[in-house]
């Protein structure tokens, strides 16, 4: 059985300090909760982000553009050719407009889907929501989250107490 600890801090500066000290003690936090992004805390966590967002969006956009280009080319030159104003059937310059729009839409949708999958959302239930006063993480409190196996419970709790949090709560997973 594993335990989740949530140590509460008052400011973003406190959070950064505590995360740094925890990492220095060899017991880095697994996550941090904050009402706004505190990017500096990431380097102290036992978590390395995989920067897949840009690639995912680029690939999704390129696929969308390629598909709609093919649809335009196929419909305008092969399946349904109409001569309009004696312009060539393969008016590729014009195809850029819809291709660009499709590229934007697909990369935006790809980005959003990547966000949902990578954050493992929606997750309406999470053990952290059991912790008292955790709702203040969306408003004015900062939390460091630690994970500990059953036999390490007391050891980790002691290490976290050294960080001098406002409060320390744990929940069994």
């Amino acid at each position, binding site marked *: 059985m594993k335990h989740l600890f949530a140590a509460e801090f008052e400011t973003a500066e406190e959070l950064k300090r505590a995360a740094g000290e925890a990492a220095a003690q060899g017991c880095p936090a697994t996550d941090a909760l904050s009402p*706004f992004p505190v990017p500096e805390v990431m380097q102290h966590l036992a978590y390395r982000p995989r920067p897949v967002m840009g690639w995912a969006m680029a690939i999704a956009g390129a696929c969308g553009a390629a598909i709609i280009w093919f649809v335009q080319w196929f419909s305008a030159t092969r399946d349904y050719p109409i001569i309009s104003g004696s312009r060539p059937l393969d008016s590729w310059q014009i*195809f850029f407009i819809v291709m660009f729009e499709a590229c934007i839409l697909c990369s935006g949708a790809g980005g959003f889907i990547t966000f949902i999958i990578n954050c493992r959302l929606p997750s309406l239930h999470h053990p952290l929501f059991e912790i008292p006063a955790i709702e203040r993480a969306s408003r004015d409190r900062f939390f460091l989250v630690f994970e500990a196996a059953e036999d390490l419970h007391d050891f980790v709790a002691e290490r976290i107490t050294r960080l001098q949090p406002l409060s320390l709560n744990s929940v069994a997973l």
Partner: protein
Amino acid sequence: MSATIDGASRWLGPGAQSSEQITALISAPILERLSWRNWWIAFLAASALTVIMWISAIYLLAEGIGVWGVNSVIVWGFAIANYVWWIGIGNAGTLISALLLLTHQQWRSSLNRFAETMTLFAASIAGLFPIFHLGRPYVLYWIVPYPNRMGLWPQWRSALVWDFWAISVYILFSFLFWYAGLIPDLAVLRDRARNPTTRRIYGAFALGWRGSARHWDIQQRMYRAMAAIAVPMVCLVHSIVALDFAASLMPGWQETIFPPYFVVGALYSGFGIVVILAASLRWGFGFESLITREHFEVIARVLLAAATVMGISYAAEWFTAWYSNDAADVSQVIYQFTGTYWPMYLGQLLFNCIIPQVFWWPAARRSITAVVVVSVIINIGMWFERILIVWNTLGHGHMPSAWRIFLPTFWDWSLLFGSLGFFAFLFLLFTRVLPAVSIHEVNLLRHEEQKA
């Protein structure tokens, strides 16, 4: 710099100096019991106009576009002018939000949420007008590419198809961008709501957001990347609208300056509406500490710059006509100044180019009343510009025997004012169910200002 600017907190007033204050202030219209008398008065007025709009729309769909003042020469009329005007307003929200994010302008934090919402509503209303203007709106889906038994495909070289893509992609993308920024705030409402049903509803839409460092990291990467692609998209949307005109062979339309000039015009009228909405929120919900005088001051500078660009664009049109030495083009410019609609044309120049020059005076920029009044004037001027682009060119084309004027009917006006009411209706509802200002971004702004 004026003496009232406190170096430590330039963009936030004394009522927004702690997380609790900010959260309470922004979520009060949604979660607290306030006095709603003014809101209800506005809502009833907006609802009445909304009913008028939909009666006009239903009558139009039942009878056909002959109920409008359009004739066989001026075939576009109010519908297309309203479309261009509304999409212009709709353009600014995402552009403001994305461009100011990429350029690290901190003052966007208080404006971006309701500006993006304005975009969603205005672009959706804009999208209705070309549909209303289609002779056969019930076959609208024919411009969507899908395999069908008739063996038909859309005509990709048609501006109507470009419009369909531009507007639908714009609305869908803007919605994703808006929702991506809204999720953390929905979590705030979930955590603050006392009523369990309210909490469940916000909780469901917040998708279980915990404010975790991993979530923030991924959300911020997505948000910045989306902003980076939103900027070219916004420019393209109004450029495509401009191509509806510029890709034709009509005097006064067939100009290469049209796309950039439409984009600036869109930014201009959109910023004008942002000012009006910002002043209403400030007054209605007591957001003085979030939307400060400084915000109006910087927007006034943007309006001044845009007014100058608009003036140069108008002058470029006159120059092009003179330099081309094309009889139809020259006649077109003379018609603008001396023809049937000359008072509106002079009004357009006065409202869009001359009056905003008042913002060279710091006192005018710092007066919220002055900025709001000029914004209203700018939007009237921009509507004049949109309608005159349609009337002057179509009514005074290459063929003198086909010169006509446009006489608007009751249904033209009822749909225009009704659409304004519908916008207000949607926006008033929005202020009651979602935070009009981004809570987490203002919180971050406060953190950065207090750190500095």
